[in-house]
C-alpha cells in the first residue's frame, strides 16, 4: 500500500498504487435541485454506448430516486453497511474546514481501501472493501422511482403531520443522476488482477482495456459506486468512457474544441456542467478562480463529492437538494452540506450568474466572466437579504473564444397582438 493524499478527506490515506495525476481531470457538477428524473441523460448514453446485445441491463448513466432507489439496488447502503461493520461507530468527520487541501475538515473513519486491509480471506486481503451485486440487483434499474419517505421511522402506517414543513420536508425524495466518477483513486483500478484498468494521463478518464480484461469482476466488487458492469456476451467488464472522443475534441460538432459528454449535453433540465480541471502535484485542484467548476467546488463550495468517505476521491460533484433532511445529506455528501445548502438557498450574484452556465453549450467551458447589470429584484429569504442583478455571464472554450453568453434574468418575449396565438 502507498500513502497518498486525499483532499476530500483532508488527510493522507492508503491506496494500493502510488499517486499519479493527469494533466487535467475530467470532472462534473450536477445541480440536484434541478433534476426532474426525465432520464434523457440515461437514454442519450444508452443510445450511444450500450445498445448492443449483452448490454440490456447495462446503464452507464442512470437516475435513481433517493432514498430508496438504486442501481444496483441499495448499492450505497450495502457499502456503508460494510464500512460500518469494519469500523463500528468510527465513520465520522472531525477537524475544521480549511483551504483546498481540506475543505470539509478531516475524515476520521476508514475508506474502502483502509477497511479492506482487515478483511482478509485465504486468498489474501481485498484491495478495496466491496461486494458483488446479484443479477436481481442489476435488473431493476428504476425500482422505487418517485417513492418518497412516507412515515416516521418505525411507524409504517402513520403518515407525517405537516409533511411539507420548511426548510426541510418530512415527506421527500430526490433524483440522483449518476455515472462513473472517474475517481482520482479508482477502486476498480486498484482491484483489477489483470491491470486492465487505467487512468488516462491527459484527462484522468478511467477506462477498461477490453483486450486485457478477463472478466474476473473484481472491479465490480471493488467500485463502491458500482459503475463497472459485466457483459455476458463479451465476457468482459465495461464502464462509462466519459465520451472520450468528444472530450478530446474529435466530435465534428465541436469544431475541434472539447465537448461535454452525451449525457451532459442531452440534459433538458440543465442540471449538468462538465469540465476539465488542472491539478497540483499533490492532486489538489490548481487555483483557477474563473473556472466554473473550481468556483462551484472550492470558492462557493456548493458542489460536493458523492460519498467522499469511500475514499476514492470521486470527480463528480453535486449541489445537494435543499428540501432534504440534513442528516441524510451529510451522510451522502459529507460535512460540507450545511454551508452548501445555506449558500445555494440565498445565492450571491456571482453564484447566480455561474449557475446560468449549466447546459447552455455542448462545448466545455474553461473560463467565465461576469458583466455586471442592474439590480432587478430584492427580497428576504428566511431572514436573509437576497438581491438579484441582471448580470451577464460569458463562458469561454479551450481556445479562449466565447461559447456562451447568458443573462441572469430570463428575457421575456411578448408576441405582437396580431400573432398572439401563433409561433
Amino acid at each position, binding site marked *: 500500500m502507498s500513502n497518498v493524499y486525499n483532499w476530500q478527506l483532508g488527510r493522507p490515506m492508503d491506496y494500493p498504487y502510488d499517486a499519479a495525476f493527469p494533466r487535467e481531470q475530467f470532472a462534473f457538477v450536477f445541480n440536484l435541485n434541478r433534476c426532474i428524473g426525465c432520464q434523457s441523460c440515461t437514454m442519450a448514453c444508452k443510445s450511444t454506448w450500450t445498445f448492443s446485445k449483452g448490454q440490456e*441491463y447495462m446503464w452507464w448513466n442512470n437516475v435513481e430516486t433517493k432514498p430508496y432507489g438504486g442501481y444496483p439496488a441499495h448499492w450505497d447502503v450495502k457499502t456503508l453497511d460494510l464500512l460500518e461493520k469494519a469500523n463500528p461507530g468510527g465513520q465520522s468527520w472531525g477537524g475544521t474546514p480549511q483551504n483546498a487541501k481540506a475543505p470539509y475538515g478531516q475524515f476520521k473513519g476508514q475508506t474502502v481501501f483502509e477497511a479492506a486491509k482487515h478483511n482478509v*480471506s*485465504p*486468498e489474501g486481503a481485498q484491495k478495496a472493501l466491496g461486494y*458483488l451485486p*446479484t*443479477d*436481481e440487483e442489476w*435488473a*431493476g434499474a428504476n425500482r422505487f422511482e418517485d417513492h418518497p419517505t412516507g412515515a416516521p421511522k418505525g411507524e409504517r402506517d402513520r403518515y407525517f403531520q405537516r409533511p411539507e414543513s420548511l426548510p426541510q420536508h418530512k415527506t421527500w425524495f430526490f433524483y440522483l443522476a449518476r455515472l462513473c466518477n472517474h475517481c482520482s483513486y479508482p477502486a476498480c483500478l486498484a482491484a483489477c488482477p489483470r491491470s486492465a484498468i487505467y487512468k488516462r494521463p491527459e484527462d484522468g478518464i478511467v477506462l477498461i482495456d477490453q483486450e486485457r480484461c*478477463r*472478466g*474476473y*469482476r473484481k472491479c465490480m466488487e471493488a467500485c463502491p459506486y458500482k459503475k463497472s458492469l459485466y457483459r*455476458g456476451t463479451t*465476457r468482459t467488464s465495461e464502464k462509462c468512457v466519459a465520451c472520450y472522443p468528444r472530450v478530446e475534441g474529435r466530435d465534428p460538432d465541436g469544431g475541434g474544441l472539447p465537448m461535454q459528454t452525451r449525457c451532459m449535453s442531452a440534459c433538458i433540465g440543465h442540471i449538468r456542467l462538465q469540465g476539465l480541471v488542472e491539478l497540483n502535484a499533490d492532486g489538489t485542484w490548481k487555483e483557477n478562480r474563473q473556472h466554473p467548476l473550481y468556483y462551484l467546488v472550492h470558492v462557493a463550495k456548493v458542489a460536493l463529492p458523492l460519498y467522499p468517505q469511500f475514499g476514492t476521491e470521486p470527480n463528480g460533484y453535486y449541489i445537494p437538494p435543499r428540501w432534504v433532511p440534513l442528516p441524510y445529506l451529510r451522510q451522502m455528501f459529507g460535512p460540507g452540506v450545511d454551508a452548501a445548502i445555506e449558500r445555494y438557498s440565498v445565492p450571491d450574484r456571482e453564484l447566480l450568474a455561474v449557475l446560468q452556465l449549466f447546459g447552455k453549450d455542448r462545448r466545455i467551458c474553461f473560463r467565465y466572466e461576469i458583466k455586471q447589470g442592474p439590480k432587478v429584484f430584492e427580497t428576504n429569504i428566511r431572514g436573509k437579504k437576497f438581491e438579484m442583478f441582471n448580470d451577464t455571464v460569458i463562458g469561454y472554450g479551450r481556445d479562449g473564444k466565447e461559447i456562451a453568453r447568458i443573462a441572469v434574468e430570463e428575457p421575456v418575449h411578448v408576441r405582437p397582438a396580431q400573432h398572439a396565438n401563433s409561433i
Partner: protein
Amino acid sequence: MQLRYDGHLLESVVFLEARRLEQSGQAALAGRYHAQRSTLYELADPDQRSDGFFKLHVQWFRELGLEARVLATAKEFPLIEERATSLMLRKALAKKEEGAELFVRPGAKNVVVALRSERFLEDGFEPFLRHEFCHVADMLDDAFGYEPRIELAGAPPTELALLRDRYRVLWDITIAGRLKQEAERAACWSEFTRAFSTLPEERQRELFDRLWRERPAHAGLLDIAKSSHTRAARTPGGACPLCKFPTFDWAGADGLGSGAVAAIQEHFPNWRPEDGCCGRCAELYAMSKMAQPPTLFV
C-alpha cells in the same frame, strides 16, 4: 431424458462457485478455472469463443458437482425421468422469475426450470428444486389430471388472475405438505390467509391442515379455489361478462328472452342468465335469433 443448459446460467453459477471456493481457501482450484477460462479469450471467432465457453462451463459444472446435485434431486421423481423428453435449466434474473414449467407438444414433454445463479449457493437449493420438480411430476401424473387452462365463464382477466393465484397457493401447500417441508409451513400459511382472507379463521385452519395432509388432484384444488370465488357483482360501470366492456346498462335474467339466452350459451357455455350482460349484448343476441337467412335474387 436429455439434459440441456442455458450457457449464461452455467457461466454465472460456475463463476460464483469458483469465487466461493477461492474465498474459502481453495484458491488452486479457482485459479485453474480462471486459467482455462482466460485462454478462450484468445479465440477470435465469436461463435467459436462462445462454444468454447459453453463447453468449459459444462465441464466445470460437472467437476464442481453441481450437475450431480440437480440430477440427484430429479431422480427422486421417477415420473420426470420416465415421461419428460428433456430437462432444461435456464437463468432467471429475479426470484419471481424462478420456477418450473412443462411445455407439451406432440411427441415431446420438455421441462424448463428457471433458476437464479445465486440459488445454487444458497442453503435451500435442493428443497427449492424438489418443490419445483414435484410440480412437474404432478403435471406429468395422469392421476393428478392437470389442465393448463383455468377457465371461469364470463370472468374478466383480473378475476382469472385471482383464481390462478389461489390455485397456485393451494398447490404449493399440498406440495410442501407432501415433501414435509416444515420450514415452508409459516410462509405457506401466510400466503394462504392472504389468498383466502374472506374465510373465517376456523375454516382457514381446517382447510389448510387438510391440504397439508392430503393430496387433492387438480380438479379438487380448482374446486376449492373456485368455491371461495365470488362473481363480480353487476355494479354500475362493471365489465360485461360477454364483451368485457364496462357498462351501466345491465340486462338481467328477466330482460332476456329464452332465444337470447340460448344464443349466448351457444358462445359462452358457462354463462348463466343471473350473470347478466350489457344491454348491447342482450340486444345483439336477441337479434341474432330473429335473423333470417338472406334473400337471394337471381
